[in-house]
């Protein structure tokens, strides 16, 4: 059910590609760093035997 984009298909698809691509990249990066830091924090707190946070 792909819509008929006519002669502008390139432009439209490209901008959706780039736009969504950037959004996904940003979200991905945020999640990845989030996970990394969380792991780090857990290690450190474990080492210091202190909880909370």
């Amino acid at each position, binding site marked *: *059910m792909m*819509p*008929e*984009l*006519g*002669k*502008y*298909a390139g*432009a*439209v698809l*490209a*901008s*959706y590609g*780039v*736009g*969504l691509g*950037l*959004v996904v*990249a*940003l*979200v991905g*990066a*945020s*999640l990845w*760093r*989030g996970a990394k*830091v*969380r792991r*780090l*924090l857990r290690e*450190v*707190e474990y*080492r*210091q035997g*202190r909880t*909370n*946070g």
Partner: protein
Amino acid sequence: MSIWEYANPKKFMQTSGWLLPWVSALAAVCLMVGLGWGFFLTPDDYRQGSTVKIIYLHVPAAMMAINAWVMMLVASLIWLVRRHHVSALAAKAAAPIGLTMTLIALVTGALWGQPMWGTWWVWDPRLTSFLILGLFYLGYIALWGAVEDPDTAADLTGVLCIVGSVFAVLSRYAVNFWSQGLHQGASLSLDKEENVADVFYLPLLICIAGFVLLFVALVLLRTRTEIRARRVQALLARERMA
């Protein structure tokens, strides 16, 4: 209880932790509906052909790019006045999002400009001032990266953000004064004359809502990360001293 309660990291972590899933889910839904509707179900514009579909990414991104900076300005002020670490970290967390939004607006805009104006880029006031906004984001992020004592960095970037805002506004006027552009005016304005046709209107609104929610979700997520990172730093430092 005052709003400042949330400036305490622990409280913030609790609340945001509870809030985050809902916001993200809502954002995802809005984006899918809005973009899906816009991309698949809206007709072509009689002048612009299928390129109007770009508006569903372009406009919300552009708006968020501006709003993100405003949010950073507010957060910086809160930090400088009331010294709540969370707000400083929130500003830090928002910057990359704003930059990405600016990029999206620029790229989609450029891709739109190619068919519409016959060129990728023209030095239209709005485009130009957007480029400059992008530069401000870059500088702001670079400064965060270059200073390593977190509080120092927060103070410096805060000052930069305030001064920068003033000059950003100045540049906007300067640019207007300097060239008159091809870019359409505010077409979400109330007067029906130069408004985007209704068929495009509703999905556009949904997309905008989606982007706003996405922004909120990301800010929450990244701020949580920053807080954790900050705490790691503190614990490691103590470890060193012990």
